[in-house]
């Protein structure tokens, strides 16, 4: 059962659909006709509902009139920022939808494995709030690369500070490569080859269209099992 204060508050905040935006800072009932221009209760009304309820009504009315509102407060529901959980959920959903669009081009088992990896990767309890959530277009670049390269070896997944997907592979002799997929189709290639047990780092920039050439150049395409 709503209290009288609640009812009065709702009445004061009520706006008909035809309401026009007020200038910022002005209560919406200024210069508006009844019914949304509310008045303090008259003595005869007070006697009808009792002193305590009337006092509550007048207190709410007074408070509301002393508050300031911007037109955006009054005419639109606030478009609140998504929480971290919501942002990660949305990112995960977007990525899974993209996977479902190309699943017929993926090798057997890849779809389910990517779903599993995304669930583990976009974990709100592990997420640094300063990091951007996974960017949909970055994931799109990743899928284009996978559909083009068709590697047999499945990558591990990570995310950069800016929300770009990173795919990483290791060879049997500990050579490694990580590919960071930018939303605009560029791919950052970083890796290490071990030559006589000495690490030799390498790096390059490629476009998703010529990524295979870069992998061949760094002798990675064989152990990735690229088609």
């Amino acid at each position: 059962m709503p209290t009288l204060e609640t009812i009065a508050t709702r009445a004061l905040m009520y706006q008909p659909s035809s309401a026009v935006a007020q200038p910022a800072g002005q209560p919406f009932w200024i210069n508006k006709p009844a019914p949304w221009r509310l008045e303090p209760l008259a003595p005869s009304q007070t006697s009808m509902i009792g002193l305590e309820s009337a006092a509550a009504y007048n207190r709410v009315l007074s408070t509301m009139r002393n508050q300031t509102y911007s037109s955006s407060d009054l005419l639109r529901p606030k478009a609140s920022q998504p929480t971290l959980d919501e942002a990660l959920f949305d990112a995960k959903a977007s990525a899974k939808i993209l996977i479902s669009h190309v699943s017929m081009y993926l090798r057997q088992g890849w779809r389910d494995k990517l779903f599993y990896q995304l669930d583990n990767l976009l974990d709100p309890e592990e997420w640094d709030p300063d990091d951007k959530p996974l960017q949909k277009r970055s994931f799109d670049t990743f899928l284009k690369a996978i559909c083009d390269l068709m590697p047999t070896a499945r990558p591990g997944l990570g995310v950069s500070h800016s929300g770009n997907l990173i795919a990483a592979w290791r060879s049997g002799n500990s050579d490694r490569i990580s590919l960071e997929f930018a939303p605009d189709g560029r791919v950052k290639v970083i890796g290490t080859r071990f030559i006589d047990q000495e690490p030799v780092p390498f790096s390059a920039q490629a476009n998703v269209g010529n990524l295979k050439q870069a992998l061949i150049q760094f002798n990675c395409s064989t152990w990735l099992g690229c088609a």
Partner: protein
Amino acid sequence: MLKRGESLPDEQHVMRHVSWVRLERDENDNVLGFLPAAFELRDGEDYLSVNWLEYYEQAHADNVTACIASVRSVLPAKKARFGVAQVAKVKTLAKHSNKPVRIVYASSPKNLSHSALHIDQPIPDAVCEALALEFYKQHY
């Protein structure tokens, strides 16, 4: 004990916190290493955050334990890992230009052993990769 802004001695050690999403993993999420992205700066950052192990003035293993506990009190993520490397080695690997690499003590009230690794920017990808491999040699 060092004062804020003083350089860490070359023979001492720093620890780097690496979040779950920047761990190198296999397809089954077994951890294999640190990604080079763990050593990239965010937009607007001008140093890499590390923690000075010898701040705790105990044996090496106890310093590691105390340092991890301290960082976890600020960053409670459970699956994050920590890498340790010697100051001199880090400075050697991170040097890629004429500008010196500096690791200075930069404590904050919530993170008493916090230190700053200043590297000339932009940090080349190969440097990030070398640091990722070095810090993973001693990881927790």
